[in-house]
């Protein structure tokens, strides 16, 4: 059976004893300073070239970023996203041979409210990151997780799926050529004009930036957020909820500020871990989108992952060698035990396996590259209602023989208690639910309040998304308590409205 420490009676092909002063495998001249993958030793110069080249090759291979597009860089402060930021700077710089041509913006989401940090700590972290962002001269947005409560419910919907091609409908190559031609015609010093354009953009936005950063969050907002996270029982669900909320905030910012692409800094190692965790969480149906290079689920905004070919080791080493400052911000799972959540456990498993078998991560990565999103036949009737409310992925709810969905329904039926469920007790008041009579949950008519028993919520959620964790997130949440917050947290409010709309037998 598969175990990390399994005995192979000495037949195990362990990595050989390291040799001292190896030469770089590329230039064969300089002394190697780093081993990547399963034994390629690189010297400092060759490593830098390799690193930079990989980024541009990744963008060049997947031709999704058109010239002049506005691209939002999601930076968390961690090494991978900071590295991505520096690669974007590198690629956009004037003297780069085949420079990238898009208009970048940066977004940072301050989730200190959810991970229990104090306001001073959060301000300190934000200040540190701001100094990094200012040095890039790109427009940046600092968004607090608390702002999720003021998001419109349109965030939960996929935008139109028309890809953002220039009006002329050119193919990628033609678009690039067209762009170059236009620039040349505009100004003799074409490079200068681009630079002027970009600095103009950033000077324009400095005023807006002030507003973005100082949007005040009240302690009540933070408390509401903390209540939400406190009511989620497991760390696994918390981490997933955090991820979902962050995605929504990023999406909203992208939409309102006119960004058509979002770059996430997920590294190869991180994606390998994500792949395995997602399978454990029941999200197998959306693997291609969750771990692929481009994630088209939102329609009008496409998420791309240009760092997906870099292992954490390469990133860490590059940041160290070339002084890229990353900011450490404690998160939900900092110092958590290995078994605290499914994500942590998977991370620990993969990392341990990687030390003895250095091709683990790349094998998982190569497997994930082969996954493609199967596009179901586009049918306007089913399209609108067939997405999960929380993760906007297609529902995996076709009730076929031996499908996972059928199995889940069966086990739900078997484990449901007979008779009327216990009245849900939010804050001491007991409110019953009318499942017993075969009708659906009644809902209090006032805005934002929906009363139902947890079992009902569980089953209802199932009808919306069999991606196990979306079910998990919502069923773990003390729904009524949250919906009583004023204003109600948008997603759950929408969820309750949907239940009310579909009132029928549970």
């Amino acid at each position, binding site marked *: 059976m598969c175990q990390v420490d399994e005995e192979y009676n000495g037949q195990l092909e362990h990595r050989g004893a390291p040799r001292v002063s190896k030469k770089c495998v590329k230039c064969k001249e300089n002394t190697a300073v*780093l081993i990547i993958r399963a034994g390629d030793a690189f010297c400092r110069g060759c490593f830098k070239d390799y690193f930079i080249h990989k980024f541009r090759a990744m963008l060049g291979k997947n031709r999704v970023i058109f010239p002049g597009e506005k691209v939002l860089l999601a930076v968390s402060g961690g090494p991978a996203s900071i590295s991505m930021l520096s690669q974007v700077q590198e690629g956009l710089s004037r003297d780069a041979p085949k420079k990238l041509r898009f208009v970048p913006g940066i977004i940072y989401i301050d989730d200190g409210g959810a991970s229990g940090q104090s306001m001073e700590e959060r301000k300190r972290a934000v200040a540190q990151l701001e100094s990094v962002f200012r040095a890039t001269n790109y427009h940046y947005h600092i968004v607090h997780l608390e702002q999720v409560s003021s998001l419109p419910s349109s965030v939960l919907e996929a935008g139109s799926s028309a890809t953002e091609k220039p009006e002329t409908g050119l193919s990628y190559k033609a678009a690039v050529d067209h762009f170059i031609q236009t620039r040349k015609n505009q100004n003799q010093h074409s490079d200068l004009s681009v630079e002027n354009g970009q600095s103009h953009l950033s000077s324009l936005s400095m005023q807006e930036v002030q507003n973005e950063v100082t949007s005040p969050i009240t302690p009540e907002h933070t408390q509401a957020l903390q209540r939400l996270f406190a009511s989620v029982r497991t760390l696994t669900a918390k981490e997933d909820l955090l991820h979902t909320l962050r995605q929504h905030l990023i999406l909203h910012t992208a939409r309102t500020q006119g960004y058509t692409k979002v770059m996430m800094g997920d590294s190869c190692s991180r994606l390998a871990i994500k792949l395995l965790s997602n399978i454990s969480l029941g999200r197998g149906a959306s693997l291609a989108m969750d771990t692929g290079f481009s994630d088209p689920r939102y329609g009008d905004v496409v998420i791309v992952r240009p760092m997906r070919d870099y292992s954490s080791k390469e990133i860490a080493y590059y940041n160290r060698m070339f002084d890229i400052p990353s900011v450490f911000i404690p998160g939900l799972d900092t*110092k958590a035990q290995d078994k605290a959540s499914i994500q942590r456990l998977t991370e*620990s498993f993969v990392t341990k396996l990687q030390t003895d078998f250095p091709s683990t991560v790349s094998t998982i990565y190569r497997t994930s590259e082969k996954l493609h999103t199967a596009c179901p036949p586009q049918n306007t009737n089913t399209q609108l209602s067939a997405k999960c409310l929380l993760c906007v992925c297609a529902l995996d709810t076709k009730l076929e023989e031996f499908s996972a969905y059928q199995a889940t329904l069966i086990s739900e039926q078997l484990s449901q208690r007979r008779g009327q469920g216990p009245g849900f007790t939010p804050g001491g008041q007991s409110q019953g639910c009318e499942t017993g009579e075969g009708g659906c949950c009644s809902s209090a008519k006032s805005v934002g309040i929906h009363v139902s028993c947890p079992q009902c919520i569980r089953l209802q959620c199932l009808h919306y998304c069999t991606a196990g964790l979306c079910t998990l997130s919502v069923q773990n949440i003390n729904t009524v308590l949250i919906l009583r917050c004023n204003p109600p947290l948008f997603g759950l409010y929408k969820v309750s409205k949907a239940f009310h709309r579909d009132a029928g037998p549970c």
Partner: protein
Amino acid sequence: FLLPLGLTHPHLLFGSVKEHHVTLPNQSEPWDMKQLLVWIRGNMLKERPELFVQGDTVRPGILVLINDADWELMGELEYELQDKDNVVFISTLHGG
């Protein structure tokens, strides 16, 4: 002998100080990385040693650089420390 010690991310376990200069006590045999780790565990780690060392070696996911070179190229645990060697521990993990 004197040893500058750098930390990224695991610094939380070391009282949040990122850089340490350590002087190792004299002994007859030269110090190697294995002994250094034992020494660090005994003298410097403030909490949760299992997040830094695992058994004989560092926890998987922690990158070790000796004088800015990958320790895998230097012999990993068998590398013998010289005076003024610069050792850096970088965590590539999510938590900690």
